């Protein structure tokens, strides 16, 4: 009789121990879930606060850089008065002389020396000159600067057109800021 009573007591004790363990585990679970929730909330708030606000400025910079470079005087006379004149000459009439040199021989040097004077030292650049609808019509392309710039991210692009007799030229300047 006494043994049976003891057994009953032991059983109820172990049951209550088991339920308190379950409750302990539950509270641990609640705590762990709370911690996970706050970590996720923190990550969400942190990432939603990150904005790439420099985009406006770099877009303005790249457009002004291209436009200013194209308009700058080269020091040569007609037909290479400005950089855009020289590019146009090198593309359409490459053998024409600017002073004593051919347009096609000076275009790279002139354009690169002007752009490198103005561009920020940590920026990279790549210039592509091609006829309008190059992807359909095809034809020659003049490129200047670092070709890897095109594949780097983020990069910023500015486009201009040179209206030339016979074929309009499309000029694309790509820069990277890092």
């Amino acid at each position, binding site marked *: 009789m006494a043994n049976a009573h003891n057994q009953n007591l032991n059983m109820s004790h172990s049951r209550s121990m088991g339920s308190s363990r379950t409750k302990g585990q539950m*509270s641990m679970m609640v705590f762990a879930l709370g911690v996970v929730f706050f970590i996720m909330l923190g990550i969400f708030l942190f990432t939603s606060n990150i904005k790439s*606000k420099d985009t406006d*400025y770099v877009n303005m910079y790249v457009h002004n850089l291209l436009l*200013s470079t194209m*308009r700058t005087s080269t020091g040569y006379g007609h037909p290479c008065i400005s950089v855009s004149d020289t590019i146009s000459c090198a593309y359409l009439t490459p053998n024409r002389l600017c002073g004593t040199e051919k347009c096609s021989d000076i275009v790279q040097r002139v354009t690169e020396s002007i752009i490198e*004077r103005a561009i920020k030292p940590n920026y990279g650049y790549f210039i592509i000159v091609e006829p309008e609808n190059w992807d359909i019509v095809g034809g020659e392309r003049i490129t200047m600067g670092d070709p890897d710039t095109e594949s780097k991210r983020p990069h910023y692009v500015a486009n201009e057109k040179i209206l030339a007799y016979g074929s309009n030229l499309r000029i694309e300047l790509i820069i990277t800021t890092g």
Partner: protein
Amino acid sequence: MRIGQAHMMEYILLTVFIIILMVAFMIMMTVFQIGGVRSEGAEHVYRQSITTTRFIVNSPYFNNPRFSDGSVFDDSKLSVADCEELREVIGEGWFAFVVIPGALQETLCDEFNYPECNKWIICDKADVRKETCVHEVPVNIYRKMDDTIDIGILTVGLYGKCT
């Protein structure tokens, strides 16, 4: 009795955990609120700096009328720029200058050395100790005496933090 105490302890611990979580949550929200206000202030300074730069780049006050799309500054106009006049239009708290890059030595332009110079101060930086939000933009300088166009860098700064 022991089981009851254990239950009580459990509830107390759970309550303490919940209170800790709530306090952590409140601290986190406050930190983000402060961060948000600061970043909004910086964003405002940044926008204002960009707007001021765009205004100067396109202003007929400096631009040569031959170039309708702007950003070709006339060197003679730059040489006689009046900062106070511009501050009446744009407001206070900014500075700007233009430099022709690549020269060995910067020579400030005035009425005595024009056109043998390569730097124009539109509005001088009044306080060197203040934090500034500075933007540089390439522009063209029309050299009136030679009838040539050179490349220049316009630097515009606003007092305040924008990063």
